[in-house]
C-alpha cells in the first residue's frame, strides 16, 4: 500500500481528470461537476493515505521517486515530500473539493459574481483540476527545475480561471497576475540557472536535485545574487509589500473558487519557497538579508492591515488581510528559529483554511447581494443567521482568536520570533489589534445593525442603491431573494472548514509533529538556530 507512487498519482489523477472533464460534450455540466468532485475527492484520499504512509521519524524526504527527464540539463522528474510539503498537499486535498462544491450551482452566482453566460462550466472545472495537478507538483517537486516548471505552468490555469470567470475587471486582473508572477518567475529562472552553473563547477556535473544543491558551498557574493533571484519571485508570489498590488486585484476579480485557491494555496508557494529554497540553499545570504526581509514582513503586516480597513470592497479587503498574514509567515520564516518556522508552516495551512472559508462566505454573501461593496449590506445576521455565524467563525479565525487554528500558528510565529527578533515581533504583535479592527469593522458593517441595503430589494432588476456603477455587470441571481440563509449544499461546503478551524485550534499537535522534523532540518541547513 505504501509503495504506491502517491505523489505521481496526485499529479496524474487531476491532470487526467482535467482532460476528461474538458473532453466531455458541451452541456454536460452536471456530469462535469460530478467527475471533478470525484477526482478531487480521490486526490484528498491519496493525500490522506500519503500522510498515513509518512513516517515522521524517518528520512526527511519520503515517498520519493525519480525519473530522468532531460538528461542534457541534468533534470529529473523527482518527487518527494517532507513534512512541510505534505501538509500543503493535505491542504490542497481539502480545499479543492470544497471549492468545487462551492462552485456547484448552475447559475453565475455559484462560481463568482459575474455573468458567465458564454463560458462553459466544464472548462472551469477542467482548469481547476489542472491547477490542482500543478499545485501538487510544485510542492512535491524535489528537483529545482521541476519546481520551476510547475511554478510557472501553474500560472496558466489560474490565468484562465481569473480571466474567463472573473469579475468586471477580470482582464486587467488576469494579465496583472500573470505578468507579476512571470516577472518574478523569470528572475528566479536566472537564479535557478545560476545555481545549476555553480553545481556544475563544484560537483563536476550540473544538477537540479535539491539534496545535492543543499550541499554546495556557494561563494557569499554569488549567494546574495542567487538569493535575490529566488527571493523576488517568492516575494511577489507570497506577496510581500511592496510587491503586493496584484493580489487585491486578482483576489477581488477572481471567481470565489479561484480566489480561495489563489490565496489559500498558490500564494503559499512563495512562503514555501522561502523555507524550502532560500534558507537552506543560501544560508549566508539569508542571514545577510534577513533584517531587510523582516522589515518588509513587518511593514506588510501593519501596512496591509491598515489598508484592509480602508477597503470598501469585501474581496479586496480579504485580499489585503492575506497580505498582512503573509507578513506574519515571512516573519516566522526569517526569524530563524524552529518554533517560528514551524509556526509559519502551520500558518500557511491555517491561513488557507481560514481565509479560504472567509472568501467562501464572502462569496456566498455576494452571490445573494450581487455586490462586493460593504456599504451595500447591513444587518444580514438578522436575515441569515447561519451565514453570519460562519462569517464570524471565519473572521475570528482570521484574527487568530484562541480556539481557532490560526491562533496556534500566529502564536508560534510570534513567540518563536521574539527571542531572536524582539523589536520586529513587538511591532508585528501590534498587528493583531489591527486584525481585530478590520475583521470586526467588516462584520459590523455587513452583519450587524438594522437590515438594509441590497438584501431588502425585492426586485432584482431594480438598480442598486449604492455602488451601482461597479456592480452593473453582476449577474442576476436565479435563486429567490427570500431564501437568504445558507442552504444544505453551502453548509456542506463550509462545514469541513469550520470543523478544521476548531479541531486544529484545539489539537494542532499532529500537524506540528509532521512539520517540525522538516523545519529542524531546514534550520540545521541554515547552520543551527540563531539563538
Amino acid at each position, binding site marked *: 500500500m505504501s509503495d504506491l507512487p502517491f505523489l505521481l498519482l496526485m499529479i496524474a489523477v487531476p491532470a487526467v481528470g482535467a482532460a476528461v472533464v474538458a473532453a466531455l460534450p458541451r452541456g454536460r455540466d452536471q456530469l462535469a461537476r460530478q467527475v471533478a468532485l470525484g477526482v478531487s475527492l480521490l486526490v484528498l484520499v491519496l493525500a490522506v493515505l500519503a500522510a498515513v504512509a509518512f513516517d515522521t521519524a524517518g528520512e526527511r524526504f519520503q515517498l520519493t521517486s525519480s525519473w530522468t527527464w532531460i538528461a542534457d540539463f541534468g533534470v529529473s522528474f523527482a518527487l518527494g515530500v517532507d513534512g512541510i510539503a505534505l501538509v500543503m498537499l493535505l491542504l490542497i486535498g481539502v480545499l479543492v473539493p470544497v471549492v468545487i462544491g462551492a462552485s456547484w450551482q448552475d447559475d453565475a452566482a455559484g462560481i463568482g459574481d459575474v455573468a458567465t453566460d458564454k463560458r462553459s462550466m466544464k472548462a472551469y472545472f477542467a482548469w481547476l483540476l489542472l491547477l490542482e495537478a500543478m499545485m501538487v507538483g510544485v510542492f512535491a517537486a524535489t528537483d529545482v527545475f521541476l519546481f520551476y516548471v510547475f511554478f*510557472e505552468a501553474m500560472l496558466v490555469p489560474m490565468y484562465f480561471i481569473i480571466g474567463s470567470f472573473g469579475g468586471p475587471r477580470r482582464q486587467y486582473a488576469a494579465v496583472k497576475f500573470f505578468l507579476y508572477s512571470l516577472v518574478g518567475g523569470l528572475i528566479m529562472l536566472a537564479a535557478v540557472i545560476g545555481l545549476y552553473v555553480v553545481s556544475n563547477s563544484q560537483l563536476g556535473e550540473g544538477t537540479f536535485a535539491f539534496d545535492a544543491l543543499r550541499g554546495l558551498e556557494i561563494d557569499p557574493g554569488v549567494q546574495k545574487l542567487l538569493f535575490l533571484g529566488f527571493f523576488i519571485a517568492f516575494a511577489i508570489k507570497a506577496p510581500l509589500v511592496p510587491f503586493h498590488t496584484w493580489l487585491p486585484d486578482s483576489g477581488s476579480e477572481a471567481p470565489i473558487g479561484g480566489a480561495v485557491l489563489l490565496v489559500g494555496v498558490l500564494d503559499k508557494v512563495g512562503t514555501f519557497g522561502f523555507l524550502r529554497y532560500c534558507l537552506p540553499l543560501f544560508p549566508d545570504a539569508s542571514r545577510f538579508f534577513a533584517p531587510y526581509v523582516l522589515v518588509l514582513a513587518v511593514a506588510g503586516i501593519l501596512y496591509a492591515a491598515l489598508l484592509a480597513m480602508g477597503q470598501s470592497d469585501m474581496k479586496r479587503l480579504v485580499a489585503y488581510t492575506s497580505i498582512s498574514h503573509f507578513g506574519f509567515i515571512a516573519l516566522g520564516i526569517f526569524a530563524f528559529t524552529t518554533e517560528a518556522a514551524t509556526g509559519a508552516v502551520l500558518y500557511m495551512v491555517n491561513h488557507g483554511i481560514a481565509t479560504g472559508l472567509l472568501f467562501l462566505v464572502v462569496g456566498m454573501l455576494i452571490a445573494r447581494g450581487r455586490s462586493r461593496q460593504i456599504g451595500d449590506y447591513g444587518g444580514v445576521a438578522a436575515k441569515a443567521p447561519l451565514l453570519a455565524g460562519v462569517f464570524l467563525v471565519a473572521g475570528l479565525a482570521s484574527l487568530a482568536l484562541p480556539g481557532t487554528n490560526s491562533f496556534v500558528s500566529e502564536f508560534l510565529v510570534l513567540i518563536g520570533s521574539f527571542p531572536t527578533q524582539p523589536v520586529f515581533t513587538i511591532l508585528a504583535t501590534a498587528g493583531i489589534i489591527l486584525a481585530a479592527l478590520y475583521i470586526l469593522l467588516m462584520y459590523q458593517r455587513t452583519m450587524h445593525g438594522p437590515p438594509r441595503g441590497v438584501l431588502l430589494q425585492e426586485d432584482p432588476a431594480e438598480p442598486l442603491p449604492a455602488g451601482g456603477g461597479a456592480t452593473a455587470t453582476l449577474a442576476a441571481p436565479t435563486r429567490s431573494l427570500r431564501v437568504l440563509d445558507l442552504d444544505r449544499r453551502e453548509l456542506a461546503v463550509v462545514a469541513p472548514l469550520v470543523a478544521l478551524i476548531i479541531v486544529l485550534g484545539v489539537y494542532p499537535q499532529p500537524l506540528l509533529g509532521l512539520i517540525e522534523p522538516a523545519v529542524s532540518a531546514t534550520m540545521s541547513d541554515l547552520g543551527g538556530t540563531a539563538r
Partner: protein
Amino acid sequence: MIEAPDLSLAALAPLLFIFGAACVGVLVEAFWPRDTRHPVQVSVALVGTVGALVCTLLLAGSREITAGGALAVDGAGLFLQATIAGLGALSLLLFAERSLDPARSAFVTSAAVPAGSPRDRELLTSTRVQTEVYPLASFAIGGMMLFTAANDLLIMFVALEVLSLPLYLISGMARRRRLLSQEAAVKYFLLGAFASAFFLYGLALVYGATGSVRFSDIRSASLADGTDILLVLGLALLVVGLLFKASVAPFHTWTPDVYQGAPTPVTAFMAACTKVAAFGAILRLLYVAFGTAEWTWRPLVYGVAIVSMIVGAVLGLTQTDLKRMLAYSSIAHAGFLLTGVIGLGAGGEGSGLAATMFYLLAYGLTTLGAFAVLTLIRVGDGEATHLSQWAGLASRSPLVAAVMALFLLALAGIPLTAGFTGKFAVFRAAIEEGAWPLALVALLASAVAAFFYLRVIVLMYFSSPAADGPTVGVPGLPTTIVLAITATATVALGIVPGSVLDVAEQAAIFVG
C-alpha cells in the same frame, strides 16, 4: 595543369537535392501544362526539401570540408540544414494550401498585372494559380542551406544572394492587399541589397587584411594580428550584413513592414527559415573565422542582443496587427538567440551552440505554427490580422484558439512548451559564460514581451466576440498537417525535449 577541386558528392547531397528540385521546378514551369502544373510543382518542391532533409539526416555525424574548402559539412551545419529543410517543407505546405482563400491560393495569379487594374480584378476571382513560387522558394531554401554550410566568405555571399533574391520576389506576390505586398517587396529588396553591399565591402576588407576569404585562413590571420583595423572593420561590416538578415536591432527596420506586407505563408517561411539560416551563418562566421578574436566582437553581440530584445519587446507592446506583432516578436527572439551566441564561450566549447540550434528549431516551429493559424482567420476575402478582429475567437472556434494560445505561450516561454526549453538552454549557456546580466535583461524583456502575447489570449478568451467578427476557415490537408506537426512539436519539445537536445548536443561541432 589545373587541379580539379575535391568534391564529395555525398556530402553535398542535401544541397544537390534541393537545387536540383529547384531547377526541375523551373523546367516544369516552362514546359508542364498549366492546368496540372500546381500539384506537380508542389510535389517537386516537397521532394526536394524532404529529400534534402533525409540526406542531411543520413549524413549525420560526418565532418569534412569539401568543394575546395568552400563548404563545410559538420554537425552544426547539418543540424541547421535539416532544420531549414524541414521548416521549408512545412512552409511549402502552407504555400500549397488551396481551400482557405476563395480564389484557392494566397499568391497573385500574375504579378506583372498592375494592382487594381481591370485585368487584376478579373484575375482576382479566377482560380488560376501561381506556381512560380515553388521553384523560387526551393532556390531560397537551397540558398539558406548553403548559407549555413559556407566555409568561405564568397560562398557565403553567393548563398546570401541566392536565398534573398527569390524572397524579394515572393514577398511581393500576395493575392490580397497587393499594394502592401509590393511595397514590402520594394523595401525588402532595396534594404536587402543595401545590406548586401555592406557585407560585400566587409568581405573585401577582410580579403585585403588576410589575403584570403577562406575561414581557416582568416582564423589564423586574426590569431596572428587580431587588432588589424582593416580586419576589424571588415568583421564589423560582415556582421552588419548578417544581423540584417537575422533582423537584429538596429538592423531590424525592414522586418515589421515586410512581415506585414508579404503573403502570410511567405512571412512564415521568412520568420522560420531565414532566421535559422542567418544565425547559422553568424555562428559559423564568428566561431570559425573569428573565434580567436572572440573578445573583439563579444561586447558588440552583447550590446546588439540587449538592444534587439528591448526594441522587439517594447515596440511589440503597441502593435495592433498580428503579423506586425509577430515581426517584433521575431526581433526580440533574435536578441534571445544572441544570448545563446554569447554562450558559445571562447572557442565554442560552451553549451551555447547546441542551445542556439535547439532554440532555432523550437522558435521556427512555433512561429511557423502561429503564422499558419493566422491564415485561418479570415474576414471578407483576406486574412483578419487586426487584433480587434480576434476578440472572442475562443467561443467561436475553441480548437483554433487553443492552438494559437499554445503557440503564444510558447513564444512567451512558458514552461512545458518548446519556447521555454529553448530559452532555458540559451540562458543557461549565457550564464555559464558569466553573462548573467545579459540573461537578466533577456528575462525581463521576455516578461515585457509576454504582455503582448497575453493580450492576444485575453482577446481570444476573455473578450466577447464582435458581431461582425471574422470567419474561421476550415484548413485543407496541407495546413492541417502543418498545424498538427508544429503544435505537436511545440508541446513535445517542451515536455520531452531530451532526445532533440541530445542530437543538438552531439551535432554542436564546427569544422574549420
